């Protein structure tokens, strides 16, 4: 029933797209009809990871100029929503910042889901301390700060790793996410991996933060709190931290180096991780001297077996674009492109869709 309706909608949308196209071809008789008989066509609907949203929007715009017969809609809404939409069959692919958790595997029973990594990005430790332009933090210190064990900026633990920096006695205000989020999930995963003996709050899309933490909605909301509150520190996605003009700390990585977050340092982190055969991996706390330790990633999830050949064709075309030319859009949007090794594996996997 559901599938029938999706098909009907797809056909209807296809009809509209095709008629629109033929109209366009008529009006500009010189150049039009090259899209012709066997190119991919149809509508792809997707939802999920809001981390991917900016990239998807830019990619959809560009993709339209290459494949005008394929319409892609990416709805956002969070990784969890994307995965449940995919399980319910209401979308063709889902964006997710983490692999399917064990609690959800039952929803996908009997079907093979392919993971296509599409984007990498650093999570910054953004802070607001007037006069302090460079700050170093270790995973242990970050864990203590976010568990309210370190309460002021001139705490000996912070002073010890920042010789020569004049730290004020300002009270530390934590800026955290109000909504559940893949950013929180990966930030807490970082603390759990990098400071296992200190971090007691676990890893989840929602963390029970110490009281007094200020919660904002979305990366933008947390950036806004950090921006407005002297003494605040928050975990903010790199793109939003840049957009809000925030100052961010360099964080000690697995090799002991203090690394400033950047798209190249994030790509370096992804290049050093061990990738599972199904292309899942965790880019946090990656080895490598130049790797930024709080790096996260996002996948597009697709069923290996597609109900119609035309949808499979359209999916291959769009995902192929995201992994190919689309990667060049990333740095300008303050995301990091995939390292060549992972990108090649993902491209090789495209042929499995059918």
């Amino acid at each position, binding site marked *: 029933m559901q599938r029938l309706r999706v098909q009907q909608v797809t056909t209807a949308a296809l009809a509209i797209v095709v008629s629109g196209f033929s109209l366009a071809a008529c009006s500009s008789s010189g150049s039009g009809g090259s899209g012709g008989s066997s190119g991919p066509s149809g509508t792809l609907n997707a939802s999920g990871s*809001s981390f991917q949203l900016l990239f998807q929007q830019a990619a959809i715009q560009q993709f339209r100029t290459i494949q005008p017969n394929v319409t892609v809609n990416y709805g956002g*809404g*969070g*990784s*969890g*929503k994307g*995965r*449940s939409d995919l399980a319910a069959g209401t979308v063709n692919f889902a964006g997710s910042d983490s692999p399917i*958790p064990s*609690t*959800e595997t039952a929803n996908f029973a009997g079907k093979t889901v392919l993971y296509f990594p599409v984007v990498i990005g650093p999570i910054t430790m953004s802070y607001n301390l007037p006069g302090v332009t460079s700050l170093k933090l270790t995973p242990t210190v970050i864990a203590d700060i976010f568990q309210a064990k370190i309460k002021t900026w001139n705490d000996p633990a912070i002073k010890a790793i920042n010789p020569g920096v004049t730290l004020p006695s300002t009270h530390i205000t934590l800026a955290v996410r*109000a*909504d*559940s*989020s*893949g950013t929180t*999930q990966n930030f*807490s995963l970082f603390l759990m991996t990098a400071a296992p003996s200190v971090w007691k*709050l*676990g*890893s*989840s*899309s*929602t*963390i*029970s*933060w110490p*009281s*007094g*933490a*200020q*919660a904002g*909605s979305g990366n933008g909301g947390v950036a806004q709190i950090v921006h*407005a509150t002297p003494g605040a520190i928050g975990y903010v996605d790199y793109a939003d931290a840049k957009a809000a003009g925030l100052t961010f700390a360099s964080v000690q990585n697995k090799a002991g180096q203090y690394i400033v977050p950047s798209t190249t340092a994030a790509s370096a982190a992804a290049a050093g991780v061990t990738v599972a055969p199904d292309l899942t991996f965790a880019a946090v706390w990656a080895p490598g001297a130049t790797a930024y330790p709080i790096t996260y990633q996002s996948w597009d999830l697709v069923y290996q077996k597609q109900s119609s050949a035309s949808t499979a064709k359209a999916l291959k075309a769009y995902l192929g674009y995201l992994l190919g030319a689309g990667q060049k859009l990333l740095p300008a949007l303050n995301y990091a492109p995939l390292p060549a090794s992972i990108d090649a594996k993902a491209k090789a996997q495209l042929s499995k869709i059918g």
Partner: protein
Amino acid sequence: MSVVIPADQAAPGSVPASGLTARAGLGDRGFRWLTLAAGLLVLVILVLIAVSTSQQASQWFSTEGLKIFGTKWDPATNKFGATPFIYGTAITGVIALVMAVPVSVGIALLLTEVVPYRFARPIVYVVDLLAVVPSVVWGLWGILVFAPWIQHTYASIGSGVNGVPVLGNLFGPPTSGPSFFTAGIILAFMITPIVTSLSREVIATVPTIDREGAYALGATRWEMIRGVVWPHSQGGVVGSVLLGLGRAVGETIAAALVIGSSPEITSHLFATGYSMPAVIANQFGEASGVFKSALLGLGVLLFAFTIIINVIARGAVERSTRRMRGA
């Protein structure tokens, strides 16, 4: 009157069937079925929503048992206790009522007892305009304008009463711009129109003859309101207040933006908190498994609470209007 009715009721069956009335009868029957279907549809949808959400929430109810009323909500360690949210919903509702009710009843009395009709109209329009403002606009205004502005006031009140027995517990630090109190104030703005217009309608049903009777006995306006208007409309006003509470309890996006989003049970009204609809809106996107089931379960509880509040409210309004007609 009761003598005439039986003849009327007998009419539909016994009217001789001319062509015209037969067709009219068909139209009437069709109309009756159509309206009946429309009425039943609402009921069916309501029941289906209740059943399907309870079904989805059953995992939470069955795995947690009575722990659903636990005090800790921490998805990272699979603790899903609903009490912080129930508490936050109740507290913000009470704050909203304490602020909105005197104002609303005041406006209602102003409109019915003090200002002449032709000046009352514009005031009604303005109050109703408050209801037109979308709740997300209230929320954004609350978080971008109101909360940053009022947080200094909270902070100075907080440091002033710090250590004073009861006041210190209610208004002492920690203080924060987004808080129970801020959410309560925003909700108060939002429920003022509904409480005002319902109270106004109830108060307007007080018979003019009773009012004039009171004046004739030499009562002042205040004595008339206290002696005639209030006893007559008490139940109805209580009902309208409860309907306002129903709205405040269910308000989602405005509360989600200004309540501060931390699941804590504290007597400090200026501290950050959480409410049931707000946590559903905030955390649903990334939830799965028991977590998702728990959020749906909160929805079921909220559904039950608002139904109870609304039934009590309707009952109160009806009882008072029935008594009014009897009087």
